[in-house]
């Protein structure tokens, strides 16, 4: 990256380190941090939406909807999340191709699942075989996002369902006594009051989501773990500079990155918690009121 790096005689000490850390492969490594942050930024709101939907379904008066919602929220309780990560990515991929296959090649006669193979007609491949490499990466990333959102949506649904139950019943009854309809009670009373009860759980979930991002590596996305292994290893495909096994240092770097993310999030979430407690009928809100008075 720097012109001085072209001259090998100057490569010593700090100067060497600077040049080493700015090679093309390292710039790819730094970009993969952006991948992780993008995943966090996209997944968090989508998972929240999934969780909200799941909690609403679980509260529904309609039996079938309620069973779907409860099933979704119960999904993550007994089974390790990593099983879902591995399962959904393949299942979604095959599901999409199967639907495309049904739509585009109705007169294809060969069985799709033939022995040890899963074969759809060429037109049903997603993304198409001719697509550029970048689209394959984008597709892989999108699958990962949907998988994360599905799993974390289930966690969020648990939290939000609990929070909706925690809103004092008297508040809802008062709203009903004023003649509000069910929808109005939900929108104007339940949802605004719910957040303060949901926040501790959701904060926890956010910290968990940060800590789950290395699993992207298992889903085949070239994330920070992938690059740390490639750049640190002594004999890998990203091998550009002969060095012994430095993976330990790269992983120490990742450890520091995650610890920093956790710390920053904790500070920010504590502030948010104080902010949201303002004027609420909870112990924290009461403490704020007393401190001000």
């Amino acid at each position: 990256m720097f012109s001085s790096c072209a001259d090998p005689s100057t490569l010593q000490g700090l100067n060497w380190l600077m040049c080493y850390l700015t090679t093309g492969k390292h710039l790819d490594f730094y970009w993969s941090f952006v991948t992780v942050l993008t995943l966090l930024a996209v997944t968090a709101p989508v998972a929240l939406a999934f969780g909200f939907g799941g909690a609403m379904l679980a509260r529904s008066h309609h039996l079938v909807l309620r069973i779907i919602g409860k099933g979704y929220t119960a999904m993550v309780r007994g089974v390790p999340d990593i099983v879902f990560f591995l399962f959904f990515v393949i299942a979604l991929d095959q599901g999409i191709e199967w639907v495309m296959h049904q739509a585009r090649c109705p007169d294809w006669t060969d069985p799709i699942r033939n022995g040890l193979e899963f074969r759809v007609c060429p037109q049903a491949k997603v993304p198409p075989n001719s697509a550029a490499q970048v689209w394959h990466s984008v597709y892989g990333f999108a699958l990962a996002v949907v998988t994360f959102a599905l799993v974390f949506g289930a966690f969020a649904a648990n939290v939000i369902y609990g929070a909706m139950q925690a809103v004092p019943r008297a508040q809802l009854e008062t709203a009903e006594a004023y003649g509000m309809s069910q929808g109005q009670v939900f929108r104007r009373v339940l949802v605004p009051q719910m957040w303060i009860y949901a926040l501790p759980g959701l904060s926890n979930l956010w910290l968990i989501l940060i800590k789950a991002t290395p699993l992207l590596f298992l889903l085949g996305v070239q994330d920070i773990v992938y690059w740390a292994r490639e750049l640190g290893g002594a004999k890998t495909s990203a091998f550009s500079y002969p060095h012994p096994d430095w993976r330990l240092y790269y992983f120490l770097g990742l450890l520091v990155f995650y610890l920093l993310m956790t710390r920053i999030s904790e500070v920010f979430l504590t502030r948010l918690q104080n902010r949201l407690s303002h004027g609420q009928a909870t112990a924290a809100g009461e403490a704020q009121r007393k401190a001000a008075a």
Partner: protein
Amino acid sequence: MSCLQTIADYGLRSMGIGERLLPRADFTLCQQFTLIGSGMIWNIYFGVLALLFGFFFANALALAKAARNPLARKPAEWFIFVFRGSPLFIQFFLAYEALVLLPRNGIEIFGITAEVSWLSRAWAGALIVLFLNTAAYSAEIFYGALRSVPKGDLEAAEAYGITGWNRFRRVEWPTMMRLAWPSYTNEAIFLFHATTLVFFSGFPAFRQEGDALYYASYFVDKTFNPFVPYPIVAFYFVILTLALTGVFGAINRRLNRHLPSNERSRVKLRPQIIR
């Protein structure tokens, strides 16, 4: 080949007993159930031992974190922050990379050469990581419980002249356990879930002896069909979770047996501590 024969061949495959080669084609449901079930031995091994050792270390850590002396408090706080603040996945990688850097010929201590290569094997290395990890998470739970021991209990103990170690052993510690137990049950369940990460992180499976998820993903790689092996893993884990809830629930009942029934804390599953 009958199913009983399969169980005899592969039932203990994950420990290296029985048939050496994994099945390569024509996978039957029985084979998948047997091999994945045999992999569960590893999950249970990691979970039980890490939980057992971690319990004692966690107690010590919680006490250290609650201590007045900063020499005890600060290291405990840092330890808990590092292990709770970073992904277990990265911890596994880091531990593996650190352990393979140990000299191959062993370390000389007082003229005796200590063999260290076994540390980089999963059964020891991953167990150490899981032990430290669960100790940190449990310590935070115990610390929280220790802080919420009712003031009245402590004052009552003092009124009876019970102080120091006696007060801790007979009043504080039992109450701390009782308060912490529902959260600790969750921690135990999610520790067992976390054991599935072992063979997907740095630690290689020696002679294809892996855990349940390792065999499940082996089948998925071979058949390209995720709809059978993964639900089997899920099935085993649901059973394991139910068994754990049963055991921990029984302990919880014993811890709470002196309380009137409406004041007892129930064990509730809250999926909040994956790592």
